């Protein structure tokens, strides 16, 4: 089955699927570099004007930075909190694993709108008035990426057989914390990197929570894009394509890392 040539029907079908999936992307891409594009199959002329004006727009650059640092802080916070927690549960308290898994998968069953409603209800009045602040958003982001971080860290711990490694380390006289920092962390790092990048790209594309929780106060790249869609189509295309290329670059790195890791494990 692996070596068999795919028949014509399958090839045509896949071609159709790819055209269907890539057409919107392609259109956005062309629109970002088009001078005028109406009533012709391809644009009438090409220009770099839109991309240029995008980078000249201070609000765009600001939104990009806001997105970057909010995502970075959230992912870093998640790493700091999740690494020890998942480690302790997986290695020392495996009986609690079911509970933790249930907790962690919940955000994935609760849509963003619903989560936003709860957060607004909780944090828009005293004593915890965080309405419209970055703290609230970072907390919300932390919950969004819980499933990805948990899966990534737990799988890495299991892949490197953390329990056996620790036993060996303790046998040789290392303390728990020391063993964790010098033995476990370096070993699980590549796997953790993969889930970190995945989380980062998910947060970078987040719109619902951002718009509902802090939309009026903090502009991330998604909120900015939403605001610009009505104004200039070409400019918005340029932004959308830049965003997509950025996400694509992250996915490429992710894939490379994933390949490298599975190669190491096999070898």
């Amino acid at each position: 089955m692996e070596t068999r040539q795919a028949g014509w029907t399958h090839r045509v079908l896949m071609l159709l699927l790819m055209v269907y999936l890539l057409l919107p992307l392609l259109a956005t891409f062309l629109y970002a570099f088009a001078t005028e594009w109406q009533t012709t199959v391809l644009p009438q002329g090409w220009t770099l004007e839109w991309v240029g004006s995008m980078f000249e727009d201070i609000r765009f650059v600001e939104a990009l930075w806001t997105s970057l640092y909010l995502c970075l802080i959230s992912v870093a916070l998640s790493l700091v909190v999740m690494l020890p927690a998942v480690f302790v549960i997986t290695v020392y308290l495996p009986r609690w694993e079911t509970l933790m898994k249930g907790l962690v998968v919940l955000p994935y069953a609760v849509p963003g709108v619903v989560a936003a409603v709860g957060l607004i209800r909780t944090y828009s009045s005293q004593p915890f008035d965080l309405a419209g602040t970055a703290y609230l958003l970072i907390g919300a982001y932390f919950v969004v990426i819980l499933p990805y971080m948990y899966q990534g860290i737990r799988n890495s711990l299991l892949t490197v057989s953390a329990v056996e490694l620790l036993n060996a380390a303790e046998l040789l006289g290392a303390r728990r914390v020391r063993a964790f920092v010098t033995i476990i962390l370096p070993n699980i790092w590549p796997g953790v990197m993969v889930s970190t990048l995945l989380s980062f790209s998910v947060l970078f594309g987040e719109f619902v929570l951002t718009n509902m929780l802090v939309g009026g106060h903090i502009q991330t790249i998604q909120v900015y894009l939403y605001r610009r869609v009505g104004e200039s189509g070409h400019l918005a295309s340029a932004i959308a394509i830049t965003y997509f290329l950025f996400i694509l670059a992250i996915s490429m790195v992710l894939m490379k890392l994933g390949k490298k890791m599975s190669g190491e494990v096999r070898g």
Partner: protein
Amino acid sequence: MKLRGRWMLLLGLVPFAVMVLAFQFVPVLAMVTSSFSKAGGSGLTLQHYDKIFHSPFYLQAIKNSLLISAWSSLAGIAAGLVCAYSISRFAPKIRDRLLLLSNMTSNFAGVPLAFAYIILLGSNGVFTLLFKQWGWSVFGGFNLYSWSGLVLVYVYFQVPLALLLLYPSFYGIRDQWREAASLLGATRWQFWRTVGLPLLTPSIFGTLGILFANAMGAYATAYALVGGNYNLLAIRIGSLVAGDIVNQPELGSALAVLLALSTLLAVCLNHFMAKRSLRFTANAASAPKPDGKRRRQRYSPDGQAAALPKEALR
């Protein structure tokens, strides 16, 4: 020494517990209690639910959401099944590239996706104008900012997801079984009807659950495309809680509880079905077969993490 070790363990768990409590538990609890409390005051009441189930407006929002989720999931499953079968017929190298492309487009959701469709099919969209010029009146009645347009965009983000979730289960159907069936005189159709489809059923229903929940919770795409103009549950919740005009957080909470119930139900369906399908394949895997290694890789939790729909984007 031992005591100190215990403390260290606990210390590792405290930040996690605090974060989950503060940003997951308390908010969900606050939402549920708020949906049962009187507007702007205290005291238990069912008036918000009562209002929802007696208001044609909110009932229509619920109906629209359920319908669009059901239709787009079914369309996604149909396209996903055919494409997943097709993809399993390719050599691994090409297959991986095709999967990579589908995975890539599954990132293209929410605001940018709505925007791409506006460029293509909006009122001044490239295709809209082209078709008008060519005189193709078939598409004359099409309006992107309506029901048909929304379904079209929803189907777009459902198809790659369905494909990515379904294609592994096609590898559970061995070529030997097909050969055995044909040796016993079964036609292709008979094989698929009696062996293939029953094997796929759990993962089809499981995927259906995920797609349904995905569409029910989708907000960004619809919000960017039709704004508040189309009556969908997620959009109504958004405008009731964080809207520009009038905030009715209690009513919004009640709607949000209903939405959460529907997605939880759908995800539970997926969970249940995943268990069933694992039982199927676990039995199959226990047979001594050389492709056992490939199977183990496919059902590794890594694969699951990659297949988690990036729901936050929609």
